[in-house]
């Protein structure tokens, strides 16, 4: 067990370094700008939190976006009513998402399997539909909740005169947009990863895994599993709330679409794509999907023509329309193909798949008598 914890420490350190160095290694990939970096970190938190529920217990929630949305709304309201400081917004976001998760979890966890999934989906869709229309006084509906000049901001106004423009979100004076915003999110992502790792290793985590492999047997031992499930559900809801409030902190707007089923589906896809139940998998899945959404959608014919300008003109005219099908307005197609290809060739998601691949290669090396090193696969 000692070695296990040491490995965890190493892994944690590597994870932290890789995350913090994102601006460096994403630069050649065209992903080095604050907004995308922030999104990587935030959706990473969302996916890691989702994985605590889905990966450990096997309960597939199809309504996690509701917690993301509530986190955002709570954070923006905290900006509007109290202060532009990020910390209270963060706390409100996590708190409200946790409270909602407690209610939804309490009801939904009465059922298992697909019945559970549909219950969570139904709750989230109700939240979304109401936020979009009837609850507009609280959520500002389709437009999304925004800051206004006339907001009370009671705490801020006690200390400083209101300026002419809208104030920006800050962490005790440090503006939360741009790179500082990313490092703030990254720090929380690393913390979130650490907590998730501790949960995976803890007796509580083991208990959840036991529930996953056979809930009945766990119950036969006289154990009431529901409190454990509910705890996992609420923790994972709080992660979503944290992600939601970070979305608002880096960009103070909360839109209802954040709660739509497609948003819930997105985090499910992120987690499965990266690898359910693996520690870093969900983070990788989240990064990939956000990368496609932001970078692939930005290619247009002009950009493509420049990219392929080294080819002869006739060929460019041939290549650009074909490639154009997969980027720009066709980025969904690429994403769909990615899902299919990954799931066919890397069963269990990217992390699991790469893992198997590495083992396979290593075993072949072993068979031909190659030197076996305890070196593990890179890149996690």
């Amino acid at each position, binding site marked *: 067990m000692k070695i296990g914890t040491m490995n965890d420490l190493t892994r944690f350190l590597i994870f932290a370094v890789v995350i913090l160095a994102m601006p460096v290694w994403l630069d050649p990939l065209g992903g080095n700008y604050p907004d995308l970096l922030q999104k990587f970190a935030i959706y990473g938190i969302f996916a890691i939190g989702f994985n605590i529920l889905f990966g450990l217990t096997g309960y597939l929630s199809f309504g996690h976006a509701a917690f993301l949305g509530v986190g955002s709304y709570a954070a923006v309201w905290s900006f509007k009513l109290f202060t532009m400081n990020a910390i209270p917004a963060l706390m409100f976001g996590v708190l409200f998402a946790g409270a909602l998760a407690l209610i939804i979890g309490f009801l939904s966890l009465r059922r298992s399997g697909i019945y559970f999934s*549909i219950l969570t*989906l139904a709750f989230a869709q109700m939240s979304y539909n109401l936020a979009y229309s009837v609850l507009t006084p609280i959520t500002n509906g389709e437009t999304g909740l925004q800051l206004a000049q006339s907001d009370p901001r009671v705490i801020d106004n006690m200390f400083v005169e209101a300026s002419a423009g809208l104030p920006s979100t800050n962490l005790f004076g440090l503006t939360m947009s741009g790179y500082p915003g990313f490092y703030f999110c990254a720090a929380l992502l690393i913390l979130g990863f650490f907590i998730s790792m501790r949960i995976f290793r803890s007796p509580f985590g083991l208990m959840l895994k036991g529930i996953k492999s056979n809930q009945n047997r766990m119950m036969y031992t006289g154990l009431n599993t529901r409190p454990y499930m509910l705890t996992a559900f609420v923790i994972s809801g709080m992660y979503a709330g944290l992600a939601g409030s970070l979305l608002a902190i880096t960009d103070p707007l909360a839109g209802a679409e954040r709660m739509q089923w497609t948003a819930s589906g997105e985090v499910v896809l992120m987690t*499965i794509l990266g690898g359910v139940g693996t520690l870093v998998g969900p983070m990788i899945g989240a990064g990939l999907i956000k990368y496609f959404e932001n970078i692939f959608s930005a290619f247009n014919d002009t950009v493509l023509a420049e990219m392929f300008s080294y080819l002869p003109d006739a060929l460019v005219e041939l290549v650009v329309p074909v490639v154009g099908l997969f980027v720009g307005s066709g980025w969904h197609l690429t994403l*769909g193909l990615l899902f299919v290809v990954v799931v*066919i060739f890397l069963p269990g998601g990217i992390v699991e798949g790469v893992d198997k691949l590495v083992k396979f290669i290593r075993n072949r090396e072993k068979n031909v008598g190659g030197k076996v090193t305890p070196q593990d696969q890179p890149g996690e």
Partner: protein
Amino acid sequence: MDAVFLQILNGLDKGAAYALIALGLTLVFGTLGIVNFAHGALFMLGAFCAVTFNKMLLISTKILDPTVTLFKAYKEKPYLEIWFPDVGPVLVDYSVPLSILLAIPVMLLIGFILERGLIKHFYSRPHADQILVTFGLAIVIQELIKAVFGANPIPQGAPDILAGSAAVGSWIGLGENVVYPWWRLIYLSFSGIIIFGVFAFLQFTTYGMVVRAGMRDRETVGLLGINIQKRFTIVFSLATAVAGLAGVMYTPILPPDYHMGMDFLVLSFVVVVVGGMGSLGGAVLAGFLLGIVQSFASMTEVKAILPGIDQIIIYLVAVIILLVLPRGLMGRAGVMDD
């Protein structure tokens, strides 16, 4: 009274659509154990069979519009109408019902190809993998349709004699304001026939018997030496065809676009699960039930008391049913429970 009667009709009509889509989904769910997120896309493909058929009939010669000088604008005249002035326009008029003839073989073939080529490799894989692959498949299908037909809805008319409304009220002694579009009545009956047909197939044929047995206990049926694999292919093709037909017949009600499948996807999952996993009857019942409550919740009188209730009623009813009845309306123990 009139208003209530009309809302019942609306509910039945909606329910027919929900039930028809859910039928194929629950068949695949229950028999094959596949969580098929591409089912909505298959519904959409069916609708686009109608569009394609219509476009084929309307292959036209282009007559330049001389009044437009800044670019080339054409009025289209279908060859069919030029070559066969008598039959041509009639064929075009009936293109939606006629496209069923195209849709059945095409959808069966698509189902066959998908099952053999992709789905069958996922029977023993975890649900998570099934979700990812079928979701990816749905997106790919959607995007291909979008690339060919564009993103805007494409109107498909019902045949002229069915275009208006039937004076349902005067048939049964209600007010003359009680009218209902002929095509919706046709859709309702069509859906009844299909649902009945699928039930009869499962209930009264040996084939169906094996499928039903497979829904209960796949392993045992396999152990009995029955080639369950072959049946699975047929069940999947059947489900695809049912979804496709639902799509074809829906086009005059809802002009099809590439995204219509996704719009129905969530709803059809709710219907299937509220009906109960592994139960065809449950899915049909849930479809009609949700259709009717949705119609009634949309009435102004109801909305005056509970604003916005029509936005959430389906999900609210789903939650209540699932909390009261552990396995939905008619679900079986052991099917997708965990």
